[in-house]
């Protein structure tokens, strides 16, 4: 499967060239076949699944297990973990899949903003406490979550800069990104 993308500021070629002129060669800068096929889509799906397992299902399973086994009230709504984790994972996979296209910048911006919002909600409950009979345990993971704010912040900047670049130079990116 391939998508045909045309990036060119030159006027469209006349539908019927003059008889005595040679046919215009198709330049690489004007027309490219984007490799959105095969491995990139598969990679996006795999990334979505892995990201969902890591940031959606794993915390959901840990919370529900602790609640069922030890009666620990979940600090964050398990449904939110599952739903928001799925959205963040799908956006991460979409971002990977759309990397060679102009859609990457806006998708990356949305993905980063959603990721930051997800982490922001998690940061509202940065302590996990477990009490079991006469034993109690608490771990504060706020600082780790704060560290994980760094990649989406940088990713947000990358998305904005790339989107601006694509807007300002609509014909340039094709040669580099769609070899």
């Amino acid at each position: 499967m391939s998508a045909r993308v045309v990036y060119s500021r030159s006027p469209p070629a006349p539908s019927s060239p003059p008889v005595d002129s040679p046919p215009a060669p198709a330049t690489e800068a004007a027309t490219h076949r984007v490799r959105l096929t095969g491995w990139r889509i598969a990679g996006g799906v795999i990334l979505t699944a892995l990201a969902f397992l890591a940031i959606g299902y794993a915390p959901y399973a840990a919370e529900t297990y602790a609640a069922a086994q030890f009666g620990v009230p979940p600090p964050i709504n398990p449904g939110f973990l599952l739903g928001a984790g799925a959205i963040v994972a799908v956006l991460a996979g979409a971002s990977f899949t759309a990397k060679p296209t102009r859609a990457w910048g806006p998708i990356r911006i949305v993905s980063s903003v959603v990721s930051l919002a997800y982490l922001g909600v998690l940061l509202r409950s940065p302590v996990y406490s477990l009490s079991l009979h006469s034993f109690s345990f608490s771990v504060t993971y706020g600082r780790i979550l704060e560290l994980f704010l760094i990649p989406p912040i940088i990713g947000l900047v990358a998305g904005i800069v790339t989107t601006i670049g694509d807007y300002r130079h609509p014909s340039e990116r094709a040669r580099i990104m769609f070899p």
Partner: protein
Amino acid sequence: MKPSGTYRLGRAFRLLASLALVALILFLVSVVVSAVQVGQGVQSQTGRTHTAVAAQLVGTNLEVSLTFPITNRGFYEIEGLRLASQFTDTTLQTGSLAVAQGGPITIPGGATKNLTLMAKFNLSGPAGSYLLVNDALIGEKLWLNATYANLVPVGVGYDSSYQWGAPLYHLAFSLGVPSLAGNGTVAAPVTITFENHAQGLTLVGTLRSAVVAPNGTVCASASFPVLAPPGPNTLGGTIYVLASCPIHGDTVVGSFLTAGIAFPFPPETIP
């Protein structure tokens, strides 16, 4: 064709974001692996630590220090490790019997450091006297706080209780028929009974006692050597009381002296 500066900048940020994410994931995995190693090290150390115990009397407080080694088997440091413990008498509800504190210490990865836990017991307080002659249920609360890898503050709490066996359980003085002893005194046979409920501990020391009249006059004083195995014990002797003292209605006060430390017992009125 050379890409535009905006595009190259965007590509650099994209690469930086990916590298940051990979580095963070690797760091997180290493923290978890290291934390598991620390946990395994603590489990293998439990019950096999060589503890140094020292006790000294400072004023009316008995200060007991326990020193034990802690090994950090992980590769990140444990920072600000603090250990605190509080002992309470759940029978009398007299509040805190003693507070013990240790640390803070920092243990680098792969290193062993000693943590000294210092406990202060107030011997002159009502709880100290009560525990000398009464059994009780002692509650203990233990707290441990530390920051792992300079990133993850961890807190552990543990509640437990111990049955306290009083070494001079139901301490009682009884006087026999007094007889004139000259020098303005009367000699009275005294019988001291108690049960040593301290498990496996033979009580060795001296029982110092004084008979005090209601007006505050010290009518007599005597010391009795104590060598009391666990179980019921009876001590006997003679006490010389000022003839001007009424004896009956006087109060016996005193303390149990062992290893240079005096443990006062509650005053007892002679019937």
